């Protein structure tokens, strides 16, 4: 059981404000991912929840208990560190037993818990080894095992995949998803990788510059990004952004072209950012016709599809998802069209999403 409630959490290191008021409600058994660019404050927030750093302002409630002044080990929280932080002079068994013994459990209970964690994580053959004799993936599993032995209500994972090679990552990702279901607690997972966030999370917290940009399910974030930051951050390749002017039913980009989308934003704002994901556009070869004028930069062939990168009036390249049969040479003129229901609108002044 773990329900979290963060209320107006602020954190400053001396004169530097890192977090500017975080409000967050997390339900029991959720897998929450904090995602954001490096230095956005997501690891700091995790350390505040763990109790490793004091909260400057605001309240952190865990299951209706105020946690601000409670020592890390008494919060019922376990944490897996980015570097794993295994005790190098202890073997795997002792690494896991250290925390369990400090909880005041009796010997039989400590052994039972370690045996269970070792079984879940397939660590049985490694119990006698020292950390330096383990591979990266094995160390990772020991670090998780050490956390599980404490039977935490809340498990914190700080960029757990960043030290693994690419082949292991997807494997360990699945493992973590499985463990989360099996343990039946609440998990908070920090990453800067939006693919990890999308694939693992029940709900994602997008953090930028010490503020929450959006909190929602992966689908909500992808389909209705709250602002241009989330729109750019979630989804790969990135969403294309184009400055357009609303003229009646049409959206005009001066010197590039115009489109007449099926749905337009509410309100009367004229200066609009039009955002379209790569799969929300089609292109037709040739300089003439409707849509936006662009020229091909290069093509990425992926087998089942191809991403064509085009530039509008010399702007930054945007990607358009096309069929694999597409053959376009660089500098060819093309016309870009927006598919129905695929347009996102943002205010150019505030960057916030405009409702349709």
């Amino acid at each position, binding site marked *: 059981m773990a329900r979290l409630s963060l209320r107006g959490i602020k954190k400053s290191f001396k004169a530097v404000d890192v977090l500017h008021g975080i409000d967050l409600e997390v339900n029991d058994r959720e897998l929450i991912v904090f995602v954001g660019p490096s230095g956005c404050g997501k690891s700091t927030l995790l350390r505040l929840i763990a109790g490793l750093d004091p909260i400057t302002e605001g309240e952190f409630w865990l299951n209706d208990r105020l946690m601000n002044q409670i020592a890390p080990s008494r919060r019922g929280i376990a944490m897996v560190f980015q570097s794993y932080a295994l005790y190098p002079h202890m073997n795997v068994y002792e690494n896991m037993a250290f925390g369990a013994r400090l*909880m005041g459990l009796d010997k039989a209970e400590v052994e039972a818990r370690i045996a269970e964690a070792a079984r879940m994580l397939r660590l049985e053959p490694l119990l006698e080894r020292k950390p330096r004799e383990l591979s990266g993936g094995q*160390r990772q599993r020991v670090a998780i095992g050490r956390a599980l032995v404490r039977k935490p209500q809340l498990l914190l994972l700080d960029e757990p995949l960043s030290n693994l090679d690419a082949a292991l990552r997807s494997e360990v990702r699945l493992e973590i998803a499985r463990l989360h279901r099996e343990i039946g607690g609440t998990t908070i997972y920090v990453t800067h990788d939006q693919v990890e966030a999308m694939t693992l999370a029940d709900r994602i917290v997008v953090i930028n510059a010490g503020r929450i940009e959006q909190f929602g399910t992966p689908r909500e974030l992808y389909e209705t990004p709250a602002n241009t930051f989330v729109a750019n951050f979630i989804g790969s390749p990135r969403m294309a952004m184009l400055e357009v002017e609303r003229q009646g039913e049409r959206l005009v980009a001066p010197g590039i072209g115009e489109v007449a989308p099926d749905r337009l934003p509410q309100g009367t704002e004229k200066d609009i950012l039009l955002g379209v994901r790569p799969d929300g556009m089609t292109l037709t070869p040739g300089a003439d016709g409707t849509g936006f004028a662009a020229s091909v930069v290069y093509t990425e062939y992926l087998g089942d599809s191809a991403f064509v990168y085009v530039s509008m009036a010399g702007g930054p390249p945007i990607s358009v998802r096309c069929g694999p049969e597409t053959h376009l040479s660089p500098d060819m003129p093309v016309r870009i069209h927006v598919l129905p229901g695929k347009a996102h609108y943002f205010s150019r002044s505030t960057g916030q999403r405009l409702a349709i």
Partner: protein
Amino acid sequence: MALGRDGLIQIILIGNSIVMLAPIIIMVMSAFKTNAQIFQSPFSLPDFTKVGNLVRVWTETDFIRYLMNSFIVTGSSIALILVLGTMAAYALARYEFRGANLILLFFLAGLTLPLKLAVIPLFIQMRDLGLLDTRFALIFIYVATGLPTTVFILTGFIRSLPNELEDAARMDGASEARIMWAIMLPLVRPAMVIAAIQNIVPIWNDFFFPLIFIQSNDLKTLPQGLTTFMGEFGTDWGVLFSGLTLSALPVIILYIALSRQFVNGMTAGAIK
């Protein structure tokens, strides 16, 4: 150039080894010679079966007593230096508090102080404390001189250890004292060995402070005790060199025994 850079470095290193080892070898060889032999043929190989000098060191001085005194003084000094130095270094390296840097600088300032210049004030201080002619006089001075280098070495080393280890132990519910004892101390051990050796050699060999502060024969340390053979009118060099050889032996053995600890990369595997 047939030799090349590496060859040149090899020659320099070999030359350096000869320069460093020669006095020790001459000391050991002279330990088996008479006064006359030492002056007539200082570089000749002695007859290693002639152990008369060694016997005289054993029988004509309180060698065992001096050895014990040296052990007690050096041992307690090193123990105190390591305990105090490690705790100070851990606090300076890990806890943020006002004046931490000032305290570190204050320790480092100790490195620049030629303590022998302060011998008269020290003597007055020890006299007023009633510590003249006691082992405490020596131990206090050695601890004071040993702490700067120890704190310097250990602070740097502890700062290089990953912070997340302590965080992990904190999450596991370890108290600050237990973190220091069960997590940090085993990791800091290689640096403590370096600090220990760094301090053992000058303390063991020190002649100056015992000469100033110790009068009773019962409390004399080895280097001081061996001066029995350095008379006003004549010095029995052979016996003196035997004594020096015996006195250097424990330190050399210790050095060899601990040198393996240096290379013990304890942190390997702590972080990726």
